[in-house]
C-alpha cells in the first residue's frame, strides 16, 4: 500500500502522480514499472491494475508516475487524491541497461518521455542527447526537467509550434547523420511506429537500441503469459513484464501488428 502524496495535472490529459513507497523507491532502476491499482478498495471494476513506468524517484522514498488519461482506468487513477492509499506492486521487469562510458541518445515520443527522465537522471555524468517530440508544444513533456539535468535537449513538434517542425525521427536522423560514436546507445520509448523507425535507423547504422515496450497486462509478474510480443527470430514470444519492458530492439519483431 502506498500513500498518494500528490496528483498534479500537467496538461489536459496528463497527470503526475506521486506516491510514498519506500521499498519501491529504494529498489527501482530506470525503465522498470509498477502495477498500480486504479479502482477504490472493495470495488470490482475495473478488475486489473494498470502498468505504469516509474517516471522518477524523488527524495525520501517517493516515486512519480507520468500518465495520460486514455480510458476508464487512468481516469479513475486521476481521481485519487492525497490521503488515498493504493496497492502498488513494483518495481517490476527489466529496465534499461546502461553501458557506462558510452554516449546515449534518448528518444521519446509523447508519453514516451515518462521512463526516460529516470534514465536521464541516472545517466547524469555521461554524454547524453535527449530528443523529445509531440504533436504540439503543449504536449511536449518534461522539457525543463531534462534540461535541468544538463543534457542537450532537441525538440520536434508535428505542428512546428516548438523545436523542429516534424517528427523526433527527423531530428534523430539529423543527429545520426553527423556520424555518431559507434558505441552510442539509443534508448527509446513512444508509439510503436516511432520506435520502429528509431530501431530501423539504429539497425542500419549498427547502433545498439533499447526499446521500452507496452502490452496489455493482467499480472505484471509472469503469471498469466498475457503480455506476449513476437520475437524477431520467429521462435515464439517475449514477455513484456518479465523479460522487458525494455528490450534490445534486435530481439523484437517489428512486423506490423495485425
Amino acid at each position, binding site marked *: 500500500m502506498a500513500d498518494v502524496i500528490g496528483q498534479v495535472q500537467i496538461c489536459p490529459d496528463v497527470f503526475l502522480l506521486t506516491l510514498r513507497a519506500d521499498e519501491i523507491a529504494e529498489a527501482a532502476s530506470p525503465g522498470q514499472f509498477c502495477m498500480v491499482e486504479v479502482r477504490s478498495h472493495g470495488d470490482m*471494476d475495473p*478488475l486489473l491494475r494498470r502498468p505504469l513506468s516509474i517516471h522518477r524517484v524523488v527524495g525520501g522514498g517517493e516515486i512519480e508516475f507520468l500518465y495520460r488519461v486514455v480510458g476508464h482506468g487512468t481516469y479513475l487513477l486521476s481521481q485519487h487524491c492525497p490521503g488515498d492509499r493504493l496497492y502498488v506492486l513494483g518495481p517490476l521487469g527489466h529496465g534499461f541497461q546502461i553501458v557506462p562510458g558510452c554516449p546515449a541518445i534518448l528518444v521519446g515520443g509523447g508519453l514516451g518521455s515518462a521512463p526516460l527522465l529516470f534514465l536521464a537522471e541516472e545517466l547524469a555524468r555521461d554524454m547524453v542527447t535527449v530528443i523529445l517530440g509531440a504533436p504540439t508544444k503543449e504536449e511536449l513533456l518534461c522539457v525543463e526537467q531534462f534540461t535541468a539535468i544538463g543534457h542537450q535537449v532537441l525538440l520536434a513538434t508535428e505542428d512546428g509550434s516548438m523545436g523542429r517542425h516534424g517528427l523526433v525521427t527527423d531530428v534523430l536522423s539529423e543527429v545520426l547523420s553527423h556520424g555518431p560514436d559507434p558505441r552510442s546507445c539509443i534508448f527509446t520509448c513512444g508509439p510503436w511506429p516511432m520506435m520502429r523507425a528509431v530501431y530501423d535507423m539504429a539497425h542500419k547504422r549498427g547502433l545498439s537500441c533499447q526499446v521500452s515496450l507496452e*502490452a496489455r497486462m493482467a*499480472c505484471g509478474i509472469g503469471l*498469466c*503469459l498475457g503480455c*506476449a510480443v*513476437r520475437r524477431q527470430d520467429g521462435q515464439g514470444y517475449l514477455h513484456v513484464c518479465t523479460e522487458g519492458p525494455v528490450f534490445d530492439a534486435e530481439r523484437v519483431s517489428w512486423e506490423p*501488428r*495485425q
Partner: protein
Amino acid sequence: MIAPDLSTNIGPLRLKNPVLLASGTCGYGEELKDLLDLNQLGGIIVKGISIRPRPGNPPPRLAETPCGLLNSIGLENIGIERFIREKLPWLQGLKTSVIVNIFGESTGEYAEMARRLDGVTGIQAIEVNISCPNVDGGIVSGTDPEAAAGVTRAVKRSTDLPVIVKLSPNVTDITKVAQEVASAGADAISLINTVLGMAIDVRSRRPCLARIFGGLSGPAIKPIALRMVWQVVRSVDIPVIGIGGISTYEDALEFLMAGAKAIEVGTATLVQPSSAENILAGIRTYMESNGLHRIGDLHLHI
C-alpha cells in the same frame, strides 16, 4: 473455542485446507515466492503443460471486460520434459500439494503425460484440462461427454495419482459431462474453466484479441460457476472443486456452501497476488465465529 479443521479430502488427495491456486494464474509457483506464502495454502495447480512446448497464441492475448478478463494465451508452456527438469525441483521444496494441470491434443497425449508424471516425486495429483477454449480442438473434448469420459479413462489407466478432471462451462448440460467423467473413474471434478467470450475495440474497430475469441474469467462469471458447481455436486458422488471468479472469502464460502470440497483462486491472484491468503484467513475466521468445525459443515443441504 476449538480451532476449526480446515483440511479436506479430494478423493485420495488430502489437502491441508481448501484454498488452491488455479492453473494458468500462478505460473509455476516460483514467480509468487516473494508475494505469497504458498506453504500456507491447500495447494498449487501449475500452468497447464502439454507433451511438447507450445508457443501460445499471437498477441493481443488479453482484454478486460466488466468485472472480467478475456484471455487467449493458447496454453503457452515449456512442455512436460522441461517442466519436470526445470520447474519441478523448486516445487518439490514446497510443503503444500502440487497438482499438475495437463492438456493433450488427443487421448493418447493425455495418457502419455499421465504416464510420464506417474511416480515422479513431488506431484500429488493431476488435473486434466479437457476444456481449454483457446486452442484448436481444445474445447471439443470438454463439451462432448463421450470424449470427456474417454480422456478420463485413458488418464486413470496411465497413473496411480489422483485424477481431477476440469470441466468446461460451455455446455448445455454440465451434469451430463460430470456424470460421464465420474463413471469413467475420475477421482474428482473441478469446474469451471473459462467461458467463451469476445470483445471488440470500437476505437480500432477490431476484435480485442488476435484470436477473436477468448476465455472469460473473473467475478463476472461467478454466478455461472456457482450454479454449475451446485448442479454437479448434486449429480455425482465424487468431490467437486469450485472455480470461477473467487476474489473474496465470501465468494469462496458461496462455493463451499454449494458443496464444493475445495476452491481454486484464479484471476484474483493476477489482480492481487496475495488474494488466496486473504481468502483462507477469511474462511477460517468465518468458521470460528460461526462455530463450524469442518469444511463440510459449510455445505447447505437444500
